[in-house]
């Protein structure tokens, strides 16, 4: 059976070019970047070179970028790091549609005396910059608003929010895990103080992430030890992972326009076809979204069943259904944009990548209606 991968927001295959760049660093140039000898220097050179590439990629300085194990760690360092450094200030502003890596970290801080404002979003998932402005108090230490949402693809007005924070003298962090490599990012122009990204979302390897920390921003590290990464993240550097991350960013930079057009075209085609199904709709904004993201809802059916049926015919997709989540609540993103739990239950996320084809899309458009109606037949809900 041919398999069609449409879950690129969850993770992506490592691109052949990326794997090729990584290969020398497993068995041959395997030194520890802290070692003085020639093996160590090879590793150090690769580390420096990767940092150079990735910092240029977002218009940051070399020393403004630290490597982490992934997006979750970057988010945690940014938020806990700012909280630990915040002295008397104990207020954080974020949104209701952040990734759990942000939300659960904020919840954790609430147990230690922090007050967190979770801003509401509109039906497209947009945070209003004015709401950020209004929420800022003299106790606010950090604003954390994601650049693009992982479920519905909505791109937030990060630049405006950054401007407001900069003017108010409040730190601004953005989780750019879903946008990094897909749409242009410029930390200077966008008034960003901290930015998280993760390699495995852009055809890089799992286990490598980065956190941009603007020069002058003094946050505390989360992990302590050998003082790696300018003292901000201890632990032997994952050189193959970091090298792969840099190569993935290079590829993404070089192909950004091409891939964006390709994915946008396929996504529109997909949406057009899928929305022929009765009682269905697209979540998020029709235009201001990550190119490859298509988030649907089908009333009266449940997403996990849908995803498994799709998987049985070779199609990899995801859902925000309660049944598929660990805490058995429907996606907080879908409820935040106003969906009722019953409707959120029937969500299906198809996220396209560079290697998806028109044939892939056609196949899904052809097969999905049958699966939806099969599940609707066994459902007690819905029109007869």
């Amino acid at each position, binding site marked *: 059976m041919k398999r069609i991968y449409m879950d690129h927001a969850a993770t992506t295959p490592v691109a052949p070019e990326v794997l090729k760049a990584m290969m020398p660093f497993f068995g041959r140039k395997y030194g520890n970047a802290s070692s003085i000898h020639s093996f160590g220097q090879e590793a150090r050179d690769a580390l420096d070179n990767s940092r150079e590439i990735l910092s240029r990629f977002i218009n940051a300085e070399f020393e403004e970028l630290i490597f982490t194990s992934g997006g979750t760690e970057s988010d945690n360092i940014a938020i806990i790091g700012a909280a630990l450094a915040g002295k008397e200030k104990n207020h954080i502003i974020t949104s209701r549609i952040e990734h759990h890596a942000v939300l659960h970290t904020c919840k954790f801080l609430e147990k230690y005396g922090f007050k967190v404002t979770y801003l509401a979003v509109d039906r497209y998932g947009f945070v209003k910059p004015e709401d950020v402005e209004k929420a800022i108090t003299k106790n606010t230490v950090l604003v954390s608003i994601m650049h693009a949402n992982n479920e519905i693809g909505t791109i937030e007005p990060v630049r405006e929010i950054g401007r407001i924070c900069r003017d108010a003298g409040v730190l601004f962090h953005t989780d750019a895990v879903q946008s990094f490599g897909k749409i242009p990012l410029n930390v200077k122009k966008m008034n960003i103080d901290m930015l998280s990204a993760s390699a495995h979302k852009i055809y890089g390897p799992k286990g490598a992430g980065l956190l941009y920390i603007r020069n002058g921003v003094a946050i505390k590290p989360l992990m302590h030890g050998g003082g790696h990464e300018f003292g901000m993240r201890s632990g032997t550097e994952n050189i193959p992972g970091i090298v792969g991350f840099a190569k993935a960013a290079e590829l993404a930079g070089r192909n950004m326009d091409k891939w964006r057009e390709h994915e946008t075209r396929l996504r529109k085609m997909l949406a057009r076809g899928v929305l022929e199904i009765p009682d269905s709709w697209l979540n998020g904004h029709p235009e201001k979204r990550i190119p490859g993201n298509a988030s649907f809802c089908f009333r*009266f*059916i*449940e997403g*996990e*069943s849908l995803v*498994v049926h799709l*998987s*049985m015919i070779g199609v990899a997709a995801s859902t925000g*259904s*309660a*049944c*598929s989540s*660990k805490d*058995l*609540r*429907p996606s907080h993103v879908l409820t935040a944009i106003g969906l009722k*739990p*019953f409707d959120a*239950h029937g969500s299906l996320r198809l996220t396209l990548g560079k290697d998806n084809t028109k044939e892939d899309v056609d196949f899904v458009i052809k097969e999905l209606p049958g699966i939806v109606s099969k599940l609707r*037949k*066994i*459902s*007690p*809900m819905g029109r007869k």
Partner: protein
Amino acid sequence: MGYGYSKKVIELFRHPKNIGEIKNADGTGKVGNPVCGDVMVMYLSIGKNKKGEEIIKDAKVKTFGCIAAISTSSVLTEMIKGKTIKQAQRITKNELVKKLGGLPVQKIHCSVLAVDALDKAIKDYYKKGGKHGQKG
């Protein structure tokens, strides 16, 4: 490739049994899962066996829910068909889970849902007075 489920569960999910409604059912039980939003409706048709005991002649179910919900409701209808009401009522969620070759921990509540739907359908049957004139 079991999606975390047993073979039996996946089999039942692919080919669910006893799906549908029973027109003018003798008992109907509708339950919703307050935790995750699943909904299940169980339809029973009741008859009598040779000993004169009330038995479940037919059972059908409709499920709005995940694989676990669909397969537990499906396997329960299979188990109760032909059983006396008493026997059917004795079926526990553990038996269901066992029959399915296990369920992921976080899906155990789905088996409760099926048992509850059956229970409600039987109660409904008795509430309607019991076609066969008995009280529960």
